[in-house]
């Protein structure tokens, strides 16, 4: 019984390699291609598991043009044996739903399915840098009908046919036990990908890359490509950040550097004005005289999910009620917001949902559902959707929301739009079909490393989107507001409880209030040399001057036990918007940037002038934090408060 380890990879342009062209614009054609970073972590996870199964068959798969071949060869040079590429013009324009479907069909063609006699495991990267959806792994798992774990940092086999995965969640992590076959999608925080070896490169040079067309693997061509995809990209505009480029402080000593910082900060008043988008959209000045078409076919209402942590509805799920209400108002006709609450003994959360805007709460109470599990939860959603037929389903783009929504979308055939920052009802002119779709959900999401804003439309009900936490305000609480409660009894099978949660470690959340701080002093791995002592000291110094200051940190710092989760800023932590954010020893991984980029002013201190944090900062000091921060503390003690008013 030999194990097969399958890695799914995508080739993407290397973002940092994109050079300015002669005309000063980003030249994407010259950008080198690499294996998407998260996928590289997936490849490494597979190779790590091979340590436990030295005889494992190692397969790498991708879908894309023939130009993806070099990446497959790179995977072989890292230690994989066989490579398969699904490449066909008919796949062009596929959305994540169609991609998941096509890849799973290829895997089935290769002999891997849920009833396979020999065990297999599929590794994937959490998300790609050019699409950022994180959907495909979930959709492959759903299409194959096997369990999954996403946001996984490390995997080990238990020797009994299961793998134990450490899954990152808001506030901590979970240890999960999954039977094989299963899909694991890896975050880029686990074991870094190995470098190819020369012997591997020699092997890769002579290896055969097996290329399949859609007909070879019998993909249903009606469900792939641009025409088969349930969602389309209606429009893409550039995001023009008005944050000017970073001003580096100059000086040979800490004193000079800090003097320079103070001077620079005086010069620039408020660097951040609201992000604007440059519209390349042709104005609908000449809207054609097509008939309106209501695609909903009777589907009505907006379904949301009330995600729980420690028995309470999480903040992002409450934030979600803001766009939900906005959409309901736009739709009119008394559109209802229906919230699905799944858990055990959670009735006390029902009023919270009503008071924040839910019109109806559907309660599923089951002791087996006390903890979130993607298989039964997606099954419950599917059943509710079939019964209630909502036109829109919204999820917070949390670690759970981002795996649950695509899994549901695969079941309903809807497709999903990931991580939206804007949700509006609009109308869509289809020149091909000569109709105007109205009403239709416009889901807006940043993509290509936050450089573009794409508008995605879905044509299969419900239109499913996930909303980025921290983007929308929590709606004001209307005390005493109430609504309808209905109970729902889902049909669940044993099969859906095959994945076990062995342990959930979640930090307590609410002792620190980062949301109210005017200044946040945040430390990364590069500031842990003294266990964050200087980071804390700087925050303390500011506090003693009467400034509302707090210290925070990046995720690695929490992981390594230097700080509690409540202080974590970033994608799986908090999204903050203080007047001043001081990043110390933070390299600037996108996950962290997502949580702090809307701060009014940002000062970054790091020894590496090329650290990506400087791309997002207003003021940069290149230097060792051990030298610079004590100088800053001295200045603060001498009453310098970065221009932030003290509140006594």
């Amino acid at each position: 019984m030999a194990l097969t380890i399958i890695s799914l990879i995508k080739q993407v342009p290397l973002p940092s390699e994109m050079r300015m062209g002669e005309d000063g614009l980003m030249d994407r054609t010259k950008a080198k291609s690499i294996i998407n970073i998260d996928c590289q972590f997936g490849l490494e996870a597979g190779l790590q598991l091979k340590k436990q199964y030295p005889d494992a068959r190692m397969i790498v798969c991708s879908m894309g043009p023939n130009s993806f071949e070099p990446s497959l060869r790179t995977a072989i040079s890292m230690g994989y044996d066989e490579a398969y590429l699904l490449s066909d013009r008919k796949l062009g324009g596929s959305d994540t739903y169609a991609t998941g479907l096509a890849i799973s069909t290829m895997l089935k063609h290769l002999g891997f399915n849920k009833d396979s006699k020999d065990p297999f495991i599929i590794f994937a990267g959490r998300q790609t840098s050019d699409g950022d959806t994180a959907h495909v792994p979930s959709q492959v798992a759903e299409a194959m009908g096997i369990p999954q774990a996403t946001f996984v940092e490390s995997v080990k086999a238990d020797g009994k046919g299961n793998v134990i995965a450490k899954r990152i969640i808001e506030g901590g992590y979970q240890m999960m036990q999954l039977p094989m076959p299963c899909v694991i999608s890896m975050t880029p925080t686990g074991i870094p990908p190995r470098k190819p070896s020369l012997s591997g490169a020699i092997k890769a040079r002579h290896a055969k890359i097996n290329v399949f067309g859609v007909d070879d693997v019998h993909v249903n061509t009606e469900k792939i490509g641009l025409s088969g995809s349930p969602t389309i990209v209606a429009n893409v505009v550039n995001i023009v950040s008005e944050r000017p480029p970073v001003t580096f402080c100059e000086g040979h000593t800490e004193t000079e550097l800090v003097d320079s910082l103070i001077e620079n900060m005086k010069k620039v008043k408020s660097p951040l004005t609201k992000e604007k988008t440059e519209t390349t959209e042709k104005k609908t000045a000449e809207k054609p005289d097509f008939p309106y078409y209501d695609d909903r076919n009777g589907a009505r209402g907006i379904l949301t999910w009330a995600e729980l942590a420690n028995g309470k509805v999480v903040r992002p799920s409450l934030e979600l009620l803001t766009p939900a209400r906005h959409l309901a108002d736009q739709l009119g006709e008394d559109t209802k917001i229906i919230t699905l609450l799944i858990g055990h003994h959670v009735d006390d959360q029902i009023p919270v949902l009503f008071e924040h805007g839910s019109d109806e709460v559907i309660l599923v109470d089951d002791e087996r559902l006390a903890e979130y599990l993607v298989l039964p939860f997606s099954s419950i959603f599917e059943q509710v959707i079939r019964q209630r037929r909502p036109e829109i389903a919204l999820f917070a783009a949390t670690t759970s929301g981002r795996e649950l929504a695509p899994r549901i979308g695969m079941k309903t055939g809807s497709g999903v739009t990931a991580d939206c920052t804007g949700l509006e009802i609009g109308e869509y002119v289809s020149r091909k079909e000569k109709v105007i779709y109205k009403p239709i959900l416009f889901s807006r999401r940043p993509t290509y490393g936050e450089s573009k804003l794409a508008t995605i439309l879905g044509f299969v009900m419900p239109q499913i989107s996930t909303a980025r936490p921290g983007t929308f305000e929590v709606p004001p609480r209307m005390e005493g507001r109430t609504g309808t409660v209905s109970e729902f009894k889902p049909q669940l099978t044993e099969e859906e409880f095959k994945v076990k949660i062995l342990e959930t470690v979640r930090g307590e959340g609410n002792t620190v209030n980062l949301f109210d701080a005017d200044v946040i002093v945040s430390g990364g791995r590069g500031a842990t040399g003294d266990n964050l002592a200087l980071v804390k000291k700087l925050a303390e110094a500011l506090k003693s001057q009467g400034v509302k200051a707090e210290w925070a940190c990046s995720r690695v710092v929490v992981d390594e036990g230097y700080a509690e989760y409540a202080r974590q800023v970033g994608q799986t932590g908090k999204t903050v918007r203080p007047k001043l954010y001081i990043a110390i020893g933070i390299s600037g991984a996108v996950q962290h940037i997502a949580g702090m980029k809307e701060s009014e002013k940002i000062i970054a201190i790091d020894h590496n002038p090329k650290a990506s944090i400087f791309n997002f900062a207003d003021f940069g000091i290149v230097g060792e934090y051990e030298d610079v921060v004590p100088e800053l503390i001295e200045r603060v003690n001498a009453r310098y408060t970065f221009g932030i008013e003290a509140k006594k």
Partner: protein
Amino acid sequence: MDNVDTVYTDVLIVGGGPSGLAASIHLADIINKKGQNHRILLIDKGNSIGSHILSGAVIRPEVFKQLLPDVDFNEIPFNAKVTKDATVLLSENGSFQLPFPVPYMSNKGNYIASLGQICRYLAKKAEEKGVEIYPGFSISDLLYKDGKVIGAKTIDTGVDHHGNPMENFQPGTRIEAKLTILAEGTRGSLTKKLINQYKLDKGKNAQVYSLGVKELWSVPEGNIQPGEIYHTMGYPLNLKEFGGGFIYGLNDNKVAVGLVVGLDYEDPTFDTHNAFQVWKTTPFVSKFLKGGRLVEYGAKTLPEGGWYSLPKLYTDNVMIVGDSAGMIAMPALKGVHLAITSGMLAAETAAQALDKNDFSEKSLSVYDSLIKDSLIYRDLYPTRNFRQAFAKGMIVGPLHFATQMITGGAGFFGRLKSVPDKERTKTLAEFKGKPFKERFKGKLDFDKVLTFDKPTDVYYSGTAHDEQQVPHLKINNPETFQKINIEQYGAPCQFFCSSEVYELHTDKNGHKEIRIHAENCMHCKTCDIKSPADGITWCVPNGGNGPDFQNM
């Protein structure tokens, strides 16, 4: 370790520059002609062939016809044929064009090129002929058996800063080769080990070097014509400093500018990169760049000791070719044709050795006699005392050189000795001249239009290094480094480094320490050459690390 992979090859070539590629092409041609089947592996540390190649470059084209006899000459991607060639004497504000050609420096019939482009072309030809080329792998060690080299090993990856294996550890691959050809380029790190191991420099002059820093610019139409070349002498260098500038007009309104400075200068605070920036501000140079835009930056050292500094170029199972050997003709500063020639001669030697299956020192001594009968000897021998003479300064040097020209290179004193560059640097106390910063006071504030500070220039080299590895720049002895390099010499590394790797940090208590930003490294090797008292050793970093030159 049991999971170390070994690959076997007949010939291993370390380095994909002109000499290594020429060796591989010529050897493949001979083998193919004889209908033999021998494996040739060529490994390069750059992430692609050409990415670590930097040269002026004005090239003598004849050797390409010898190397690629079956190829249409026009297919070779030279940039522009030299149309105008002038040498100009610069002062701070003026210039004077020499009315006569400088001996050995005529460029009639030569071509301007991006050597990186040429190498990419040669690599394509080599692969067509059956050479296996693997860029992106660094070779850290030679393999020995019974005191003889039997191949080499790629660097272990997946180690922390101290070299301890991490979870993604990958042991390097052993490459066992009947014959290893070192074509690492200037100051090759394996070549250095080999020379020390077998005392191949016994009885030879010390190798001496120059550092060349170069920028590629895109300029408005009309600033310069393709094929126009200028060499400058004088400012900003003084009469004790050897070197000069170059301005080469390229197609598509590109211009390559650079300054080459002999590393035998005495001022411990001399900064070649900054001198280059000052040079660009002279009216003669700046007019070519006006309205233009920086495209690329790079730096590299050049071995220019000449004939007497060539080490013994072979020992059992190994040969040395190209810049690793020191194949540069002075005063023209041309090495590409010699690199290619040495590669071809090594290939001929290798072919004979393969036929005999004898790779002993004796068998490889053919290489030596081939060289003595070649262009290399004809180019290097007459100027064998050139560089040593100029170590005496730009006044005494030309007098010496004039006598050498009359006497066929011997001069009146026979062989002139040379001193390693690091020994020429004076301590802060000994150095009596005006320190660099005072000499160019008011000229070292860079405007980021015409002139650039090092970090900005480094950005334009595309250099990158993996964070997780042992820093590839090693302070050999921290204690003596502190005492000698920092205290007595004032840390010259912070100045001579072309790419802002070394930072002298002074804390509030006045304590000074060197901080190494290895990620900026341009692989020019100046630190290995110029650090007083053997302060620093340059080792190879992970494969694929380093600059990413496109058109240097």
